[in-house]
C-alpha cells in the first residue's frame, strides 16, 4: 500500500479539528459544522488510501499498462458522501425546528429545555 501520507495525515487532522469544534463550541450550528468537517476528514483519509505515485485515474479510456489508483476506496467515498449529506441536511432541519420553538441555539439550554419538558 502506497497511500499518500500527507493527504492521509491532513484527513486525520481535520477529524481532530472537527471534534474540537464539537466539544468546545456552545452553539448548535458550530457543532454541526464541526461534525461536517470531521466527516470530510474521514472521507479525505479514504481517498488518500487509493493514491499511488504516478497512477492514472481508475477510469476507462486512459492508456492501459499504466498502474491505476485503487478504485475501491473511491467507490466507498461516494457512498459515504451521500450519507453525510443526508445526515447534515436532516440535522440542519432539526436545528431550524429547535431554534424556532425554543429561541436559542446554545446546546446547554436546549438540553435543559428538553429535560424540563419531560419532567412532567
Amino acid at each position, binding site marked *: 500500500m502506497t497511500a499518500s501520507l500527507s493527504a492521509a495525515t491532513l484527513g486525520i487532522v481535520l*477529524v481532530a479539528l472537527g471534534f474540537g469544534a464539537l466539544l468546545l463550541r456552545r452553539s448548535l450550528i458550530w457543532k454541526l459544522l464541526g461534525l461536517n468537517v470531521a466527516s470530510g476528514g474521514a472521507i479525505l483519509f479514504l481517498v488518500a488510501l487509493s493514491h499511488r505515485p504516478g497512477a492514472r485515474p481508475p477510469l476507462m479510456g486512459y492508456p492501459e499498462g499504466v498502474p491505476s489508483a485503487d478504485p475501491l476506496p473511491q467507490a466507498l467515498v461516494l457512498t459515504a458522501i451521500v*450519507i453525510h449529506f443526508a*445526515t447534515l441536511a436532516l440535522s440542519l432541519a432539526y*436545528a431550524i425546528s429547535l431554534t424556532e420553538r425554543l429561541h436559542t441555539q446554545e*446546546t446547554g439550554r436546549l438540553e435543559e*429545555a428538553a429535560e424540563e419538558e419531560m419532567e412532567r
Partner: protein
Amino acid sequence: MTAAVAGIAGYFVLGILGFLVPWARALSAGALLVGTVAYALWFPGFPTGYLGLGDWAIPWRGDILAASFWGLSLFLHLILLVHQEGGRPQHYYALVTLLFGTVLSTVLSQDIFNLYVSLELTSLIAFLLVGIEGKPAQVWASLKYLILTSCGMIFYLLGVGFVYAETETLSLVRLSSSAPAMAPGLRLGIALLLTGAAAKGGVFFYALWLPVAHGYAPAPVSALLSSLVVKMGIVALARISAAFGIGEVLVALGLVTGFLGILHMFWEKKLKVFLAYSTMSQLGYVLLGFGLGAWEGAVAYAVAHGLFKALLFLAAGEAEREAKSHLIPRHVGRISGETRALLGLGALAIMGVPPLAGYAAKGLITAVAPPWVKGVLIALSLGTAASFARLLVLPLGEGPKFEIRHPALWVLVAAVAGTGIWGLVSFPGIALPRALLTALLVSAAGITMGWPFSRLSARLPRWHLEEALLALLFASLALLLFQFLSG
C-alpha cells in the same frame, strides 16, 4: 439467497411507495407478507451467497443470528401494525417499513463497508422516527443521537480505511479465513471499527445518546429502537470480533455496560428513560454471550430482550398516556389494571423468572460461562431484579380496574412466555430443579434488595452532549489500549 434479497427489496420498494400514497399502513402489511414468504423460503437452507460480481461481490450469510433476527423483526412488525395507540401519520408506517427492511439486510451482511452503510441507514431512519411528533424534547433527543452516532461512524470509517490498507479486503469471510497478522495498523483499525459499532450499539460510555433517544421517543419507536436498532451495532461488534477472534473485548464491554446501566436505573425517575438504561444493561448479557463464544445463548438473549423490552416500552407508552406524566412516582394509582399487569409481566421476564423468555436465554449463556462469569451473571441478575422492583410497586396501588383493551400486547406476552417454555423444553439442561430454584431465589433476593436502594439518593452524571462526547473519545482510547495490550 435470492429469496432473502427479494424479501428485502420488497420491503424497500413498498416502504418508499408508502411516502407517495395515502395508504402506507396497507403497504407495510404487504411488505410483512413478502418478508414472511421470503423468510420461509431462505431460512431452512442457511444459505451463503454473494451480491454483485467477481472480486467486488459483497458476501452475505444466512446463519442462526440472521435467521433469529428475521423472525424477531417480522413478529415485531406484525405487533406494531396491529397495536393501535392513537393515530399515526402515514409516513410513520413508511419509515417503519424501511427500518425493518434495513434491519433484515444488516443481519445478513458479511462485509465491513456494507455493514457501515446498513448501520448508517438504520440510524438515519431512526433519527426521523424519534423526532416524528415534532416535540422539542424529541427533536433534541434525535439531534443528540445524530451527533454522537455520527462521531462513532466517523471512527468506523477511519477503521475501514486502516483495515483495508493492511489487508486489502473488506470481506469478513475472507478476513476470518486468512487470519491476518496483527500489525499495529490493523489493531488500530479494529479498535476504530469496534468503537463505531459500540457507539451505534448502545454500549455504555460509547452511546450515551441512548437514554434520551429511547426515553423521549414515541413509545412504539422506543420499542423498535431498543428491540432491534441498537442490536444492529451489537451484531456488527459480534461479526467483527468473530472474524478477528477477539472475543475478550466484548466481554470487557459487556461488563462495563451491564453494571453501569443498572447503576443509573436505581435513581432514574422517568419511566422510559429508566427502561432505556435497562436496555444498556441488558446488552451486557448479549455482549458477554458473544464474547464467550456462546452464540446460541447470545442470540437467544437478543431475541428474548427484543420481545420483553418491546412489551415494556409499549406498556410504558400506555402508562404515560393514562397517568399524563413521564415520572414513575406519579403513575402509582393512576394507570389501568391492564397496563399494570403488562408492566409487571415484563418486569418479571426481564428479571429472569422462569418460565418466561428471560430465564431460558440467561440459562443458555450461563451454561457455557466459566465460573467467574457465572458469579458476574448472578450479580447482574440481582441488580436487574433490584432495579425493577420499582415497577412491581405499581400494581400495588389502586386504579381503574382490569379490562383487556390492547390484544396485540397480550400476543407479545404470549410470545415471551411461549419462547421461554420452548427453551425449557428443548434444552433440558437449563430446566433442572436446582437451576430453576436458583433463578427464583436470585430474583426474590434482588427484589428485597431493591427496597433499601430506593431510599438512598445519589448524584450521577447527567451525560449532557459534551460529557457524552468526551466519554466516547476516552472510551475509544480505552478500547485502543485494550487492543494493543491484549496479546
